[in-house]
Each structure stands twice: as C-alpha cells, then as structure tokens.
C-alpha cells in the first residue's frame, strides 16, 4: 500500500485542530471585522479542508498522480468562479457597442419592470419613462 501506516495519535491531533478551528470561526463571526469577516471564515474553512484532505484522506502519503487527481476538481471549480465573476463584477463597466444597431433593428425596447443582475439592462439602453401604451412596430 502506498498509504503508510499513520500514527493514530496524529488523527486525534488533526481532529483537535479541526474542532479548535470550528470554535474559532464561530467566535470570530460575532465580531465586526468588516470585509474581513467572510475572508476569515473562508480561510478557516480552507485550512479545515486541507487538514481533512491531507491527513484523513491520506493525500499527504499518496502518489503524485493521486494528488493531481485530488486537486483537479477544486482547480476547475476555481476556474469556473473566476470566469463567472469576471463577468458579473465587470457588468456596467463596459458600454454596449451594439446600442445603435439594436435600436435601428427593433425600435425602442420594451423594458419589463424589475431590476437586472448587476443593475444593467441587458438591452443596453437606458430605461425610459413609459409614454402611454406604445406598441413596437415589427
């Protein structure tokens, strides 16, 4: 077996560390650290995850190939978060370029009430006050 026999004591130590981290994240949540609150909570969660993966799941003692497989899922998840949030965080920063074309093709847009994610109207046009019941020509 590639996973060597691990000292039982080390499992108990890891467990104690996990419980201490749990109490820590519980306690810290009661204090106002501003933007640091979610950061601290996630850093502690990440440390707990690393402890479980390295020691309980034996990745520390496994072959490099297993380590790559173990990391793959999490790396891909981070790629998904990065790409998705680069969209959501940058919405409203970029001016739509097809404004004129869209107006020429479809006329004034019918804007349903309600807000859009990111506060940006997907049609790329400013919301206009409704002037009567205006039907768009097709």
């Amino acid at each position, binding site marked *: *077996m*590639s*996973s060597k*026999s*691990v000292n*039982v004591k080390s*499992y*108990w130590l*890891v*467990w104690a560390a*996990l*419980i201490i981290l*749990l109490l820590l*994240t*519980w306690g810290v*949540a*009661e*204090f*106002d*650290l501003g933007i640091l*609150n*979610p950061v601290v*909570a*996630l850093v*502690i*969660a990440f440390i*707990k*995850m690393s402890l*479980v*993966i390295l*020691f*309980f*799941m*034996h990745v520390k003692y*496994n*072959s490099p*190939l*297993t380590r790559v*497989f*173990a990391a*793959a*899922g*999490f790396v*891909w*998840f981070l790629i*998904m*978060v990065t790409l*998705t*949030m680069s969209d*959501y*965080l940058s919405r409203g920063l970029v001016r739509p370029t097809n404004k004129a074309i869209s107006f020429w093709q479809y006329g004034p847009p019918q804007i349903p009430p309600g807000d859009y*994610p*990111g506060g940006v109207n997907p049609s790329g046009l400013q919301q206009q006050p409704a002037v009567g019941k205006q039907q768009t020509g097709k």
Partner: protein
Amino acid sequence: MPETFKAPTEEQFENFEQQEEASRLGMWTFLATEVMFFGGMFMAYIVYRHEYPQAFAVGSKHTDLFYGTLNTAILLTSSLWMALAVNAASTNRRKSSVVFLLLTILFALGFLAVKGLEYTEDLRERLLPGPHFLVPEAPKTDIFFFLYWAMTGLHGLHVLIGICVLSVIAFLAHRGKFSSEYYNPIEISGLYWHFVDIVWIFLYPLLYLVDRHL
C-alpha cells in the same frame, strides 16, 4: 483465512498495487465530478450573495447557529472515526475497525437527526420559500433560502448515501472480508465520507455565519 484475505488481481492490471492505485484514482475522479456538482450551487451562491448581500445577511440570521455548529462538530468527529476505521483495518484490527465504522454511521445518523430538528424548526418559522414563506426584513431573502434548502438538502442526501455505503462496508468488515493486505474498499468509501465532511465545512460558514455580528 480472514487475516490474510486478499482480493485477486484483475487481469488488466500489472500487479495488486496498481489495481489499488487505479481504484483510488477512480474515486478521486468521481469526487471531482462531485465538486462540480456542488460547485454549480456554490457558484449560484457566490453570484447572488454578490448581488444581494443584504438579503444573505438577513437570511443567515434566521438560520439556527447552534444546530449548525453542533452538526459541524458531529461531522468532523465522524470523519475522525472513519480515519481510525481505515487505520484499524490497515493494521489488521478487524474488531476495532468494525466498531469505528459503526461509530461513523452512528454520528452520521446523529447529524441527520439534528438536521431534522433544524428543518422542523425552520418550517415552523415559515422559512421554506413558497406561498407560506414569511418574508423577512430584506427583499430577495427567498433566494438565500432557496439555496439553503437546496444545498443542505443535497448534502443531506449525500450523508444518507454515505450511511448506506458504510453499512455495507461495516457488514463486509464484520464478515472478515478485509485485512491489512486488502482494505481498499474501506479506504475508498472513507474518501467519499471525508468529501461529504468537506462540503459541510464550507456550507457552515456560508449559510450560518454571514454577517452574524450585525
């Protein structure tokens, strides 16, 4: 005979070590798909928390912090029993391996019991989105609770599956199907169990600890 029980090497493998490595890699591949499975929900959580931070702060206040913390401790401890069960199997201590597996299952059932109590309380407080949803002080709070029920529900389903898997493993271990030469199935199902633990490690701060200080 049980002390030296060893599964045969399948013909597609060079040797027994390679066979065990392959099954371990297979489990990690499955866990990668599980990361993506839960990842979709975590992604939705990130997007909506970014859009409606107020709703998430208010929603999180309505969750039960005591039950959440208790359940985290229960799951972390059941992970410890699981690791000890694998360790016992790898050193040919069959009896203690079975005991540790049963402890893992017991703690998993405890987790579900606490979760059930919490769900009952949530339902009484009308926190289930729908016609009877009690609208708290901020708009869009129902989005938080959609995610709360979906994520904890899906995680609970995984706990349930874990209990079934570990029950079979515990039964096989009791029958002497594993030894220090062959305990791969215990190890593999242990990986699954620790993964369920990891998901909860992230659900706990994301659902219960949002802006608690406010």
